[in-house]
């Protein structure tokens, strides 16, 4: 039992926080606990979850990716241009999604090939991606897409919509990848001791690069959903989403030093942040307070998590 609590501490804590939030908000406003509102939260959170999943692998492997927000915008705009040029939806996706793969590959190859800090490289691609998006659009959004494409942003499948379904599928895939495949094992091992992984005969650069590619691809998928939902490709889409994704991953029990990471924790953290956002709107707290409060919650939780990690990392890092 003690072992269980210790192992799943972050997940249990987040579940408790989520329950408390739900109870408190349900008492405050009856509307909160209706299907319409829960659906709303899931819908809003689905993009954050998709982004955070990629970030979970990157952070577990001891890296960081600051470029996901601009990759989102950049790949979305490539899709938008393709559709505007009359290319069918599948063709446009086949052009836009590889943008994420390409940015991820550049990130990974530069980081491993030149042994440079992921912070610096992905910060660079954060600016490059945003710059490309602004240059291509001359800084004004592109709108009006075919209905088949808009389905990807808000189309209903039974009681849920496509983004929620896609996020759920990606959560399952990510969980399996992290916990049951060599790829996930090596991601965590790389974050713990990449020299040990290299000496075990594993090609470190291939695994590291593929992790950034995965993260980039998920960012492009998030970009696709965003523009399909808004029916508009904004060069400023995904502004600052990387901070939310990083926060969710760390709240979910990962260590920024690498070697630790949890898919369940990451998803729970996204749900907590999403519910908090939603609750503040329902309580009619002005939006500028929302950002402030969210920031404080994130800092408190991060400090708490990091302190806990540090206490442990005397022996485990």
């Amino acid at each position, binding site marked *: 039992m003690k072992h269980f609590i210790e192992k799943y501490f972050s997940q249990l804590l987040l579940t408790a926080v989520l329950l408390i939030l739900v109870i408190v908000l349900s008492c405050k406003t009856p509307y909160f606990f209706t299907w319409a509102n829960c659906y709303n939260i899931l819908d809003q959170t689905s993009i954050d979850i998709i982004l955070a999943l990629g970030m979970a692998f990157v952070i577990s492997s001891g890296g960081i990716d600051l470029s996901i927000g601009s990759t989102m915008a950049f790949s979305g705009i490539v899709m938008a241009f393709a559709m505007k040029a009359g290319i069918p939806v599948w063709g446009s996706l086949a052009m836009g999604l590889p943008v994420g793969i390409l940015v991820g590959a550049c990130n990974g190859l530069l980081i491993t090939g030149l042994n440079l800090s992921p912070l610096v490289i992905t910060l660079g691609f954060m600016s490059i991606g945003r710059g490309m998006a602004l240059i291509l659009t001359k800084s004004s959004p592109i709108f009006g897409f075919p209905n088949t494409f808009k389905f990807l942003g808000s189309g209903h499948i039974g009681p849920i919509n496509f983004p929620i379904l896609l996020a759920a599928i990606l959560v399952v895939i990510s969980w*399996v990848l992290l916990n*049951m*495949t*060599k790829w996930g*094992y090596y991601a*965590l*091992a790389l*974050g*713990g*001791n990449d*020299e*040990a*992984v*290299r*000496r*075990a*005969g*594993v*090609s470190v650069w291939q695994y590291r690069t593929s992790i950034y590619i995965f993260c980039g691809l998920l960012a492009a998928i998030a970009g696709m959903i965003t523009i399909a939902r808004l029916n508009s490709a904004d060069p400023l889409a995904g502004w600052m989403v990387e901070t939310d994704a990083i926060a969710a991953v760390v709240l979910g029990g990962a260590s920024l030093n690498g*070697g*630790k990471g949890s898919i369940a924790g990451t998803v729970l953290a996204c749900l907590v942040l999403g519910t908090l956002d939603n609750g503040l709107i329902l309580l009619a707290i002005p939006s500028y307070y929302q950002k402030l409060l969210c920031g404080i919650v994130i800092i408190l939780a991060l400090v708490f998590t990091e302190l806990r990690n540090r206490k442990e990392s005397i*022996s*485990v*890092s």
Partner: protein
Amino acid sequence: MAEAEKKLFLQVRNLKKSYGHVEALRGVDLDVYTGEILAVVGDNGAGKSTLIKSLAGALVPDSGKIIVEGQTYEQLNPRQALDLGISTVYQDLSLVNCRDIATNVFLGREPLKYRLFIDKKKMVQDSIALFNQLKIHIPSIHALVGRLSGGQRQGVAVARAIKFGGKLLIFDEPTAAMGIQETAATLSLIKSLGKQGYAVIIISHNLHQVFSLAQRICIIRQGLVVDTVSTADITPNQVVSMITGAAQVPS
């Protein structure tokens, strides 16, 4: 062991390696035979770990040759070395502290089911059997390696090298942090490996250990081999003076 039974497994010729201005290896020659335990001794900083890391493919030497079963290599990478049958217990153990014991034992060689998913059950079972066989005591196979004591960690590194065996097993100070019992178990294990026909290299500062285990001793001093002699032909005191440079014994 009679000369005729020995088969040359690995040769090192004129191996050199510098870290910036520090010349760690200045032209090392070494012969390693199957079925023989070779001890490498020398003071701190003599270049022992640098030498065996070159054999394990963990680092790239500046020049020289490594000849494995007749095949000449300028350098090896870890994958090649493992495929040639060279397993190593590194001095720093090369473990991932934030992962559990079984995961560390199988790092890089995870068994798969359906060709995609890691067979964790098999990893755990095999690890438990391995630790029982080696008489290495660990709290739980699921414990994180970072939570283990120094000696237990060495046990994990030794277990990993034994598990995937190969032809040459290299131990860089494998018992430095171990207790009396664990040391005895590990040493008798290493001894039996030599008898089973493995080539073994052991690095140790404990000359008593070296004399009871090894058939030959290679003495390294400041990046050069002072001499490689049969343990039968030399006394511990002579070895000490060769390590410290007080005496130069002609070969």
